[in-house]
């Protein structure tokens, strides 16, 4: 029967965001399992500046070292975010956009290429180097073009966002274990502070963007809704929320010289824009609003160059997630005033950093067991759902990273310590309930 019920249209936007996050996490887990990525202690990255983790160290040494690593990382990210705020304040928007295109090219080309090569090596795929290079080049260029252009089909842009999230997350899982957990928690706390505290860089960015009514150059995943909305009296209120990124800095050379030959330093900035759109659905002669939340995350990543001959690049990525909700009140507007431009702004936009850090958490859980993967996946998804609900309650910019990361970490340790002996003990005796 064609009669549709209300159940068809509820929750479309939420699923539109959860689906790509799930796909990204799933592919990162697959990549982690198939490549058996082990953390390589030789890489000195921005996340490893102070302490390089050695599996044979004692617990207290690891604890202190990882804590120091995490603090340094967050400080670096905060500094670069402030630089971004400064750049945006002085209207360097075009520079930021071009820089981000360059970042996309670099990420897809080198890091994506490295993963691509290791896949070829692992599965012994017969392909020659020229073909490989041509394919990789085409892939990278398409990705770069899809970042900010208006003419690309939305599916291409969405796919490339997910691919970039996968690539960066796969690199992040190479960090040692304790450092990863501490960095995740530290970033969640930083996100909380940066978005909500009065002096936080992301809050400043939000205010700057909204007062100027400008759009931040950002890397976002846009989820366009597929269900067409009824009611033409819609208006979309564009509220911009920006996230922090960084500018080019050569302060990285200070760290590099201590390590090896000088290498290039690149900073990748991903800024995210949240666009709220208000969906007006016409009832009987009066328009009502629905609203869709636009979580925004901005991320900033920074790459430090190699040690010696090896092109070992590590990045730090920061993705404070900022959410903002906007309302449009359209009760008196007649139905005929349908704005065509609304179609571009509909749907939830989620910043790239969220993809990355959720996938890092799940990837790290994958290195232990599949049970922890599933538990962390559920925790993250429910955290995302909670954040969307909170957004609709509080109506202002909220960080979405803290809830998911905290839930994910808690569930990981609970599953690992409590649930696994319980379940494994029962199933090996073939006892289930």
């Amino acid at each position: 029967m064609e009669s549709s019920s209300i159940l068809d249209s509820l929750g479309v936007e939420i699923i539109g965001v959860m689906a790509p996050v799930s796909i990204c996490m799933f592919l990162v887990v697959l990549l982690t399992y198939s490549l058996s990525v082990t953390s390589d202690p030789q890489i000195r990255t921005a996340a490893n500046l102070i302490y390089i983790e050695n599996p044979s160290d004692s617990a207290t040494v690891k604890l202190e070292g990882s804590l120091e690593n995490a603090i340094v990382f967050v400080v670096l990210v905060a500094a670069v975010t402030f630089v971004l705020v400064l750049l945006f304040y002085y209207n360097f928007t075009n520079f930021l956009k071009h820089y981000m295109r360059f970042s996309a090219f670099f990420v897809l080309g080198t890091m994506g290429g490295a993963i691509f090569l290791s896949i070829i090596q692992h599965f012994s795929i017969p392909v020659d180097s020229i073909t490989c290079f041509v394919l990789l080049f085409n892939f990278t260029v398409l990705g770069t073009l899809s970042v900010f252009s208006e003419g690309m089909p939305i599916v291409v842009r969405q796919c490339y966002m997910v691919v970039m999230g996968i690539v960066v997350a796969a690199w992040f899982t190479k960090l040692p274990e304790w450092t990863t957990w501490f960095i995740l928690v530290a970033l969640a706390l930083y996100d909380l502070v940066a978005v909500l505290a009065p002096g936080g860089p992301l809050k400043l960015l939000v205010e700057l963007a909204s007062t100027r009514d400008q759009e931040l150059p950002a890397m976002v995943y846009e989820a366009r809704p597929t269900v067409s909305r009824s009611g033409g009296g819609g208006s979309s209120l564009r509220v911009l929320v920006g996230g922090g990124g960084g500018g080019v800095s050569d302060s990285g050379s200070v760290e590099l010289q201590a390590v090896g030959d000088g290498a290039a330093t690149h900073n990748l900035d991903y800024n995210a824009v949240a666009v709220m759109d208000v969906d007006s659905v016409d009832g009987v002669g009066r328009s009502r609003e629905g609203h869709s939340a636009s979580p925004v995350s901005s991320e900033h990543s920074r790459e430090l160059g190699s040690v010696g001959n090896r092109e070992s690049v590590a990045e730090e990525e920061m993705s404070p997630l900022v959410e903002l909700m906007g309302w449009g009140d359209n009760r008196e507007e007649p139905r005929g005033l349908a704005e065509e431009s609304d179609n571009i702004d509909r749907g939830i936009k989620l910043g790239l950093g969220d993809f990355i850090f959720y996938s890092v958490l799940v990837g790290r859980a994958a290195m232990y067991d599949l049970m922890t993967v599933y538990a962390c996946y559920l925790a993250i998804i429910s955290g995302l759902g909670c954040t969307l609900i909170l957004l609709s309650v509080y109506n202002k910019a909220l960080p979405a990273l803290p809830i998911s990361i905290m839930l994910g970490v808690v569930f990981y340790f609970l599953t690992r310590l409590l649930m696994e002996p319980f379940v494994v003990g029962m199933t090996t005796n073939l006892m289930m309930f």
Partner: protein
Amino acid sequence: MTVAAGIGYALLALGPSLSLFVSVISRKPFLILTLLSSTLVWLVSLIILSGLWRPFLPLKANVWWPYALLVLSSVCFQEALRFLFWKLYMLSTLIHFALLLSSDCYAVLDLKKRLEDVLDSFADRISRPRLFLTDKLQIALAGGLGHGVAHAVFFCLSLLTPAFGPATFYVNRCSKVPFFLVSAIIALAFVTIHTFSMVIAFEGYAKGNKVDQVIVPVIHLSAGMLTLVNFASEGCVIGVPLLYLVASLTLLHCGKMVWQRLIESQNQSGSTLR
């Protein structure tokens, strides 16, 4: 034994649920959310149970009564949680809809409204048909499938990782078939039981039907206790078919109940059904 075998075991446990998911649940985003939330509830219940039992683990492998106690307590806890899930689910969707409708104060203030009333009033607002009976059943199905999938993942899939490698594993007590195969078969039975008993339970709670409300914990408990039969040497030869008997009983009862409801509602509305 190989990737093919590993995928085979996984599909054995989760194949029907995958087809259910693709055909029924993935069409409606709300059902996907219901599935995710019910999986989360099951996971939380499992974590709490393992937290409670952790000091007593590992249990001795030769004595059967600690396991019986384990299963009993777990089943009781989960059944209590199922009722709580029903209540909580109504409340949380109520809040969600209250937020969505928050431009209209009346829905927010009346917190005693039931889920269906809220959904129906929301449906009226956006000029869509009200919640059909099949919708309510589908929500219950999604909830049950969430529980079933969670069971299959945690009790079967999470242990399947070695199955993708070059060898296989046999348990002493059930030495005829590989361990992975037995656990996949048992998981399939439990997925069926969880999925359809949730439908029975939700209908029982909604209509106040005592028989339905009681039969669900009984089914769950008997299924759990039947797995204790596996404790005996070569007990799985008896235990697993009995388990499938229980699963098919659940299926039959659920089918009968749904059929009756549909006939009733058809008689009431006097129009063709969806």
